[in-house]
């Protein structure tokens, strides 16, 4: 996935992915069933679901959170991420 970019910025430089609130998550797996990009993975033990592939997450997509009945998924602040992407692009073009 190293070659993947978003708006010309290497994907791994953009911290956009869901965070699971384990106090709320009921492990219903609706998000995992929904996400076609395999961001989540199921595990043995207490935390039956983890964000295993954060860089697979489509930047600005929050569709999994909209499947989450217990409201256990959160995303970063979008305007901050947009500002960060623009900043990285400017740095790159100045090179």
């Amino acid at each position, binding site marked *: 996935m190293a070659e993947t970019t978003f*708006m010309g910025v290497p994907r791994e430089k953009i911290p956009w992915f869901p965070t699971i609130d384990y106090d709320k998550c009921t492990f219903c797996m609706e998000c995992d069933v929904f996400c*076609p990009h395999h961001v989540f993975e199921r595990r043995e033990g207490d935390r039956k679901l983890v964000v295993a592939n954060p860089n697979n997450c*489509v*930047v*600005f997509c929050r*569709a999994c959170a909209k*499947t989450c*009945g217990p*409201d256990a998924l959160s995303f970063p602040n979008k305007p901050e991420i*947009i500002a960060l992407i623009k900043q990285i692009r400017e740095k790159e073009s100045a090179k």
Partner: protein
Amino acid sequence: MKRAILSCNGLDKPEGSVAREVAIRTAEAIESEIICPVLLNRAPARYKKILSGSSLIVVDGCSTRCATKLATGLGAKVERKVMVSDSVKASGKPLESTLRLQPDGLTLAQSIVDELVHNLNAPAAAPEPVAEFEAPTEYLFVTHDKFEFRIPVVDYAFNENDVWARVLDGVARVGISDYMQQKLTDISYFDPPKVETAVDQFGELGSVESAKAVFEIVSPVSGTVVGVNPAVIENPGLINEDPYGSGWLVEIKVTDFAQDQALLLDGAAYADVVKRKAAEE
């Protein structure tokens, strides 16, 4: 057309209790029948007549969207939707964790009903479309398995969130790509942005919804919303039928399209994004 109300049954979470209260109060306010979701699920024949002759007000308690999924599964016409958990978030006050309605839950329910009834009585003005567009004539095709995704060769600019813009005389018409409409499958609801609101590039422009997902429309341009497509509000299936033409969603008076364009893709570059996304799935 008559209206009927299909709501969350309200026995799982506090948001559900509010949803149930919203349903009862709305039914009283607009003198409509309530459809019991459990009975509908168990014995749909009971509601066959009501469903075929009514448009639905759907009230979901939380993002599990049980009421919405029931409605779309039965192919019912959804006129308007309410999502209580969104209203709770917007209010900034979490509900107490009990199924018994508390005073704050009742207050919230009434405010949701007031807004809903107001909107039902005075539907948001849907101004006439500003721009006149010819349908695209030339497409690129990306194929993956049995699927084929069309992408207009010229005039359309895309963001990587599968939303297009086509600009004419300072107004951008915005919609979702053929790839995204196929991914969502049958679209049953378009929740439009408010006309006259300002939007930044990559800001939210409402959402479209199918049984499969709720898709937030990420704006490809910055500007002011000047129109929404009344035909799509009436018949969201148009998005599936003609995503680049009559299935457009929103019109935006652009502030600086030249600047927006630096962060958008042309048809050929977007085709590469679709190829990559389709391959990942």
